């Protein structure tokens, strides 16, 4: 392979030493908020793909796990800089959010329905609450209080949700059987469901 020869000749045409190209590539990567593809790097540097790959190779050595706190990672969409694993704990502290004190009314109603009637689907939650449940469910899933639990039977059945072990921990319950009883609403799951749906219908009419 005439690799060294080719490198020299390309250098002569483009006029940028490979380490200067590598500096430009690392500069592009530190500004990017998305992984950059080789094509994008080629377009931005106005250099050729092979030389850009060579520069990326140099940078992968310099920004390697264990050697540097900044790590160059090859991901699905291209290349991106990330924090080293060694620094994961410190990064976790940087991104820690203060503890939230409570849940919004919408979230509380939704998680209560899922806890007592689950597994339930979003359409059913929406029917009981009288408003679309999409964002409330999504935020509960994101917080890890609620998770998917299969689909309703039949073709195209809606996804159903149940509460998670994190929910039990946050509400101080050893299991769902410790949920306070709702005898005034009928006590049993089916009775509570019918009662809530009946009220929702009255509200809608």
């Amino acid at each position, binding site marked *: 392979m005439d690799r060294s020869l080719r490198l020299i000749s390309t250098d002569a045409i483009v006029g940028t030493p490979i380490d200067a190209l590598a500096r430009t590539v690392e*500069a592009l990567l*530190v500004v990017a908020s998305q992984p950059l593809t080789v094509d994008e790097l080629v377009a931005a540097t106005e250099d050729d793909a092979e030389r850009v790959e060579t520069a990326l190779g140099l940078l992968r050595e310099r920004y390697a796990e264990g050697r540097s706190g900044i790590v160059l990672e090859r991901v699905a969409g291209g290349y*991106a800089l990330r924090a080293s694993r060694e620094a994961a704990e410190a990064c976790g502290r940087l991104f820690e959010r203060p503890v939230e004190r409570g849940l919004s009314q919408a979230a509380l109603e939704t998680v209560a329905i899922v806890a007592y009637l689950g597994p339930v689907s979003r359409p059913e939650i929406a029917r009981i609450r009288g408003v679309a449940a999409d964002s409330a469910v999504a935020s509960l899933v994101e917080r890890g209080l609620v998770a998917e639990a299969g689909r309703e039977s039949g073709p195209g059945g809606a996804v159903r949700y149940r509460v998670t072990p994190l929910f039990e921990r946050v*509400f101080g319950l050893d299991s769902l059987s410790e949920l306070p009883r709702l005898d005034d*609403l009928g006590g049993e799951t089916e009775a*509570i469901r019918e009662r*809530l749906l009946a009220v*929702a219908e009255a509200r809608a009419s």
Partner: protein
Amino acid sequence: MPSAVRDLELDLDAFEGPFDLLLTLILKEQLEPAEIDIASIVVAFVEHLTARDRIDLDACGEFLVLIAALLEIKARQLFPEEGAELAELEPEEAAEELARRLAEYRRMKEAASWLRERLETERARYFRLGPAPLAPQAERRLAPQDPAHLVAALRGLAVPPPKVSLAHMALRFPPVAQFLERFRAVLRRRSVFDFDGEVAGLSRVEQAVAFLALLELRRAGEVALAQAAPFAPIRVSRHEAERSHAWTVRSA
């Protein structure tokens, strides 16, 4: 006859064209006086004057009157509550205050041009806007919660809805025309009356409709309105140039 003032060509941020068109648009409320940079108009006029050999005193006088009127309109719109404040100052104090503000604005213009140059010299500054591509997700953690809140939320959903009140359906709006006639009748007897006194004792809805009628009369030029201060009594007087052609009810 061509006028040095009214034909003055202006090229402002918010307007381009002759001065008299600008005035027309402002008086027709098609242009916000607040958007007009009056200093630029003055500069344009002074440049216009210096381009000539002798001073046109008539033009200067006309310009002064027009620009003063424009300034007053703009000032009233910009600082409705401040007009009174400045009016309380002695002329020397007011002039001093005005000079202070002009100096402050001049300094801010300087600061702005410094920033513009700085932006130019910092052209090569590129940094990431927004989160890093592979940054860790911020974790949302919840404080311990009380299961009783779940119970309260479900009980809230199980409360039957209250009977819908239809009371507002009975709300009747009296026709505006009724108040138009009433106010006209009052003005035939007296040249001035007090709005608040006239509608005292009426329901809130009736008072609101009466106020609409008042605005209609004002719009048609049948009455003049005066109010000494916000929330002060509104004085209604017959408009001097009362229009003879009868007002016909267009709305209501």
